[in-house]
């Protein structure tokens, strides 16, 4: 790659394309919500146009062709000749999706996506045949246009278009002005400081080069200032040069007439308008076609160096000058300064910082072991070091964090496609798009989320007829919501459909032999049957879902991310799938505990409180099961040592220390540990790749002494606990 500079540029073009496609989606969403203002439509147009321009430069013809036709239609919208109807917006979305496909096809050298032609035809049908032809002819060929042009033209157009009530000044320095050490540029700057200034220079008096008197003054200016300015203030600027220049104030006549040499000005104009694509030529024109005789130099000569400096404002004078305010008409929204960095480099940094944290922990441990007093310089230095390490770690993690917005946009597309495939009217509402999650999490979330969205469209929402019959709006709504909640990210997919038909689910599960027919399951247990492998309730296998590889796959991929999925449903109101994920896959705040001489880490986010058990707290439930009575509620007790197979269950837990943990569904459980050692941030080291999934264990970490400690997943541990029986085990298998 590095030896092909073109490939690199191309790669960055495709990255830009992705950004443009994102802004395109945003703008379309705004239009869909009723923002029909010019700026929003402009964003759409500009995005398509920029993609077309870039694609043209790389000779990506298919992409250019598609973008061009899309752009043509958008141009009609922009010019107000095409009404933005709901139908049209749908087509715009479809075209945007296809444009994304075209971009990706061009990037990966894949064949063109199907349906492009049909979509374009439908788009163009909006215009009608004649309008299309018209639009096509209006449209400039897709090539680059010289950008300098517009400035010069604008300068020309401005001549004589002065608002009648502006201050107009004709300023013609004499050679004395230069000789006395004054400089027009400074005067102009001083004027510009007063307010918006338009300057126009007349260099028609400049003779041919061989006739030039280096010390003469040939230039004069026409200046326009906002009329609100105080005339006296303007005069003040010229206070010191009044007697060495011609200064006409307040004249509103055509500035061109006030100078004798109209001929050369006309020539100047003619040359510009005749050859208006060539800006430099127009600049040179008056010099090339001078008046036959040198115009008498007005006043004594001026030093050549000054004349050279005076050239500066000349050039500036070519365009309407409006300092000190920066250029108006900012291009699109300001994206903020960003740097594109190879992900590999960031990962390397993340790993290194991870090592740093481990090393720092080791150092801290050996310092403690050395028995230094707590207020010794080493200890205080180490504390500062610890804080720094933590800051570095947070910052590094922030680099990897990305908003979930692109992911949600992909889901919007899934909704559009799947709803049109089965003929349901569905709207996707998104909330918390700016929520930031680790990039890896986002990437690996795409597949399960796609699955869930499809499920929601296909199974979650009723058909339009059923909805109408039930007195609901025709359009089904799927809400995709992301938010931070106590150190985790919670993503919810909610539909306003019919809810889970529990009878049907149960019957199906019995039919498939997943649960015995005579078992009695609670509502939530029935809901959880959906996550069983091989479960599918769709009566017919539709094109979208219903192949029986649904929710169990979703569940396992969420679990692989260290997340959990929960389901709540209300008949007639809808269903909500809630995914809870760790913010990052790299670090977590944990409580380090000791169980049967093994060191374990329990994620702090899952711990509600810790407690020491008294005899009154503990109640024996079954032969091997205990509950604790905590503020009026019974909470099951799990002996970590026994659950993890480190030792046999104790007979008496009096005086034991418990960690009270909460699960996603609000269920609480108490875990018995032998001792709580400390609370600290640990670096997560995956076990999945090197070993595989261990029930109840989320990952591992390396402690200060170099030993590996396991990081528990309390919810998973409880789910797989030995005390659980029968249907519960089945429900939560996998």
């Amino acid at each position, binding site marked *: 790659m590095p030896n092909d500079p073109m490939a690199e540029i191309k790669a960055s073009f495709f990255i830009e394309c992705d950004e443009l496609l994102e802004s395109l989606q945003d703008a379309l969403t705004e239009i869909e919500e009723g923002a029909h203002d010019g700026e929003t439509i402009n964003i759409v147009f500009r995005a398509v146009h920029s993609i077309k321009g870039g694609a043209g430069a790389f000779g990506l013809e298919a992409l250019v062709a598609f973008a061009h036709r899309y752009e043509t239609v958008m141009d009609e919208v922009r010019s107000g000749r095409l009404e933005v109807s709901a139908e049209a917006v749908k087509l715009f979305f479809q075209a945007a999706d296809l444009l994304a496909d075209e971009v990706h096809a061009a990037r990966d050298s894949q064949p063109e996506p199907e349906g492009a032609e049909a979509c374009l035809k439908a788009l163009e049908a909006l215009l009608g045949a004649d309008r299309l032809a018209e639009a096509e002819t209006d449209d400039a060929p897709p090539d680059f246009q010289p950008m300098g042009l517009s400035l010069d033209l604008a300068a020309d157009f401005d001549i004589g278009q002065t608002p009648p009530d502006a201050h107009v000044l004709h300023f013609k320095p004499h050679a004395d002005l230069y000789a006395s050490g004054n400089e027009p540029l400074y005067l102009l700057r001083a004027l510009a400081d007063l307010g918006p200034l338009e300057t126009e220079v007349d260099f028609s008096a400049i003779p041919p080069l061989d006739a030039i008197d280096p010390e003469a003054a040939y230039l004069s200016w026409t200046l326009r200032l906002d009329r609100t300015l105080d005339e006296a203030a303007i005069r003040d600027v010229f206070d010191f040069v009044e007697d060495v220049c011609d200064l006409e104030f307040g004249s509103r006549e055509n500035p061109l007439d006030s100078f004798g040499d109209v001929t050369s000005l006309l020539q100047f104009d003619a040359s510009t308008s005749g050859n208006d694509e060539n800006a430099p030529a127009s600049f040179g024109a008056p010099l090339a076609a001078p008046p036959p005789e040198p115009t008498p130099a007005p006043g004594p000569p001026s030093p050549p160096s000054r004349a050279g400096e005076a050239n500066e404002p000349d050039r500036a004078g070519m365009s309407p000058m409006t300092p000190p305010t920066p250029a108006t008409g900012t291009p699109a929204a300001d994206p903020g300064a960003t740097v594109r960095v190879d992900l590999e480099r960031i990962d390397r940094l993340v*790993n290194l910082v*991870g*090592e740093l944290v*481990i090393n720092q922990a080791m150092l801290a441990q050996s310092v403690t072991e050395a028995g230094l007093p707590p207020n010794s310089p080493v200890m205080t230095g180490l504390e500062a070091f610890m804080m720094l390490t933590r800051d570095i770690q947070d910052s590094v993690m922030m680099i990897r964090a990305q908003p979930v917005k692109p992911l949600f946009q992909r889901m919007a597309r899934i909704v559009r496609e799947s709803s049109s495939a089965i003929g349901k009217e569905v709207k996707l509402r998104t909330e918390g798009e700016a929520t930031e999650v680790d990039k890896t999490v986002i990437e690996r979330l795409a597949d399960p989320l796609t699955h869930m969205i499809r499920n929601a469209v296909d199974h979650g929402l009723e058909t339009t007829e059923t909805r109408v019959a039930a007195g609901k709006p025709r359009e089904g709504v799927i809400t995709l919501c992301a938010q931070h909640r106590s150190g985790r990210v919670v993503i919810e997919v909610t539909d306003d459909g019919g809810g889970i038909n529990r009878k049907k689910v149960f019957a199906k599960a019995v039919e498939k032999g997943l649960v015995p027919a005579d078992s009695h399951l609670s509502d939530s247990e029935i809901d959880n049957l959906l996550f069983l492998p091989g479960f599918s309730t769709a009566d017919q296998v539709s094109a979208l879902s219903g192949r029986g590889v649904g929710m169990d796959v979703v569940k396992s991929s969420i679990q692989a991310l260290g997340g959990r999925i929960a389901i709540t449903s209300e008949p007639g109101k809808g269903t909500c799938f809630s995914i809870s994920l760790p913010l990052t896959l790299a670090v977590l705040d944990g409580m380090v505990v000791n169980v049967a001489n*093994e*060191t374990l880490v329990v994620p702090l986010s899952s711990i509600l409180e810790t407690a020491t058990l008294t005899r009154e707290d503990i109640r024996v439930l079954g032969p091997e099961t205990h509950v604790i009575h905590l503020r009026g509620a019974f909470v099951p007790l799990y002996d970590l040592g026994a*659950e*993890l*197979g*480190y030792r046999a269950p104790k007979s008496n837990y009096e005086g034991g220390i418990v960690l009270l943990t909460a699960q996603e569904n609000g269920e609480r459980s108490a875990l018995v540990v032998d001792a709580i050692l400390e609370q600290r941030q640990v670096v997560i*080291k*995956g*076990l999945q790749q*090197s*070993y*595989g999934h*261990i*029930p*109840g*264990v989320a990952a*591992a970490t*390396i402690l200060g002494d*170099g*030993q*590996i*400690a*396991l990081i528990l997943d309390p919810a998973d541990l409880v789910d797989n606990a030995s005390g659980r029986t029968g249907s519960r085990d089945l429900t939560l298998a996998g």
Partner: protein
Amino acid sequence: MTEPTNTQTNSNEVELLSFRLGDEEYSVDIMSVREIRGWTRATPLPHAPAYVRGVINLRGTVLPVVDLSVRLGMRPVAGDARNVIVVVQIGTQTAGLLVDAVSDILALPRSALQPPPDLAADTAQRCISALTIVEGRMIRVLDLTAVLPQDDAEAA
């Protein structure tokens, strides 16, 4: 020693790392050995098969350690300073094999390796891909893909 010392490995020759488990001698293809480490205490894994000794920290990565002796149906390796962990790589998977002691590096012609006789297939048998005799000692060559717990069916 019938074979002249030859450091060059070619297709007709195989280099083996031999080690001791109890009184028996085993070996693995040296190409799959990444390094040899001294004994460190492994963190036990819950719900793991008996032969999985646990995990250790290998320069920042989590390395599962298999007690090869238990894996082959013998008594567990004591786990003291004399024991070593042979870090091997099979495909993308890296694992540590806990053995009593490393004995030798052997260079043998491929023809010296014989397939094991087809006896009743016990655990140990399935893990052995070849046998050879060096200086009157029988050395078993292990098939690492059968030894490592990557395959759950195998592990059960």
